[in-house]
């Protein structure tokens, strides 16, 4: 199933946006899950590293993963909530994933939440490391979670436990 049929990008579609392995092994890097040419460029505007370029506003974002330092300024600026930052070097067994999140209540730092995949299916537990919810994020909080390394390219949402 493709994005246009199901709302979830296929493996083939995803393969076009996943950063190269050698970059993932070096540190935090952005994953821009944007697959349709829609007129939009706030990711480019937000990026101070010039790692994301949108030459014509209808182009797909062109990501130079080498230039990305994982700063995460783009996450809350994407109106499609399609940008994530992954740090596979966080610890030997865990990966750090930054996720845009717009639901209340927000989780708190230290909380254990449920990690969900692109279809909302439960992957397992995630620990909340940081919640950024300042003026810059403008009500799109950026939640940093740690999950088992296998989930780095699967986890894209969380469920806060009530």
């Amino acid at each position, binding site marked *: 199933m493709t994005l246009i049929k199901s709302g979830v990008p296929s493996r083939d579609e995803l393969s076009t946006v996943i950063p190269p392995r050698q970059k993932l092994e070096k540190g935090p890097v952005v994953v821009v899950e944007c697959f349709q040419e829609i007129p939009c460029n706030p990711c480019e505007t937000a990026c101070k590293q010039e790692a994301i370029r949108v030459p014509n506003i209808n182009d797909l974002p062109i990501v130079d993963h080498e230039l990305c330092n994982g700063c995460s300024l783009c996450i809350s600026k994407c109106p*499609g909530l399609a940008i994530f930052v992954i740090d596979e070097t966080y610890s030997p067994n865990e990966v750090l994933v930054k996720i845009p999140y717009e639901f209340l209540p927000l989780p708190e730092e230290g909380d254990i939440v449920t990690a969900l995949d692109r279809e909302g299916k439960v992957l397992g537990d995630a620990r909340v490391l940081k919640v950024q919810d300042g003026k810059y994020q403008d009500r799109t909080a950026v939640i940093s979670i740690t999950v088992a390394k296998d989930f780095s390219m699967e986890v894209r949402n969380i469920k806060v436990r009530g």
Partner: protein
Amino acid sequence: MKNREIAVIGGGPAGLTAALYASRMGAEVTLLERHSIAGGQLVKQTHKFFGSQKQYAATRGIDIPQYLLEEIERQGVEILLDANVLGYYTEDGVLGYEKDKKFHVLKPERIIVGTGATENVLPFANNDLPGIYGAGAVQTLMNEYGIVPGNKALMVGAGNIGLIISYQLMQAGVEVKEIIVRGPIIRGYGVHASKVRRMGVPINTCCTVKSAHGNTCLEKVTTINLTENREPIPGTEREVDVDLLCISTGLSPLTELLWQAGCQMEYVAELGGHVPLRDKNMRTSQESIFVAGDASGIEEASMAMVEGMLAGLCAARDFGYDDGMFNELHYDAIMQLNELRSGEDSEKIRKGLKECLVKEVIR
């Protein structure tokens, strides 16, 4: 009777920018808005906008009217709220509107119609049960008045509005059971679809509502699957227990005033229905009437804002007004529209515009 250079009808994204740029050029402008607050659909659009910085990208729709209104008020635009325009009489150039339960008249030399759109309905058995809403009503209840419209919802339609409102229903704590869509693909942006999918909401294509059930209000909906040619497939009926059915099956331009004013209209399916012929400056076949936003064809708010800018600039230019920036701003507006509509996603819009865009409007 009050004379006025320009009347802008509708205080949504198109009307606000039209008023802003017309007054910036130096024209005297009255803006008529039927709601008690200006902003049109923006007042309930809590999501961040697409586009570029010039069209307030990454800003939430709800925050945009205040930026435009501050500027408009500073420039001395007269804003009439709760003012419902009822008719335009071409014989004497009079615009009639209702405000404070009284009928008023205004005689503008130019009119910019930014009346927006109306929602399409879906025919099925019992579609008048309480609990069945148009998507706009759901958004108004939730985001304008803070009223949760139900507990368990079924969304019909997976265009951007259906997807966005499904997401907002979940933000309001409503359980969205599923989204169904008649066609074989999701018409809305993939990113909006992904946002609801990762919340666990299924999107079922080739599926529609067969009937609704309930005694005093909605209790259950029967859905049926469709072939790719939209023929119902007997035996594929399913029952979904919901108390809220939200219909988001598209918009049609709201063009009564343009019809009444005698503007030449054309049916353009790609733009959502009947739309007025217009030139590149958004002037209709009536020299004194401009159009902007969804009333000229269904598109995103970013396009509506730029069309409003163009109509506002050109309506003011008819009086010879120019603050020295006309040429630059006019060029900028044309370029912004070309750019916004240059992508794959706008193919349908480009095709539709070919049918109603005329080089020289016939008078």
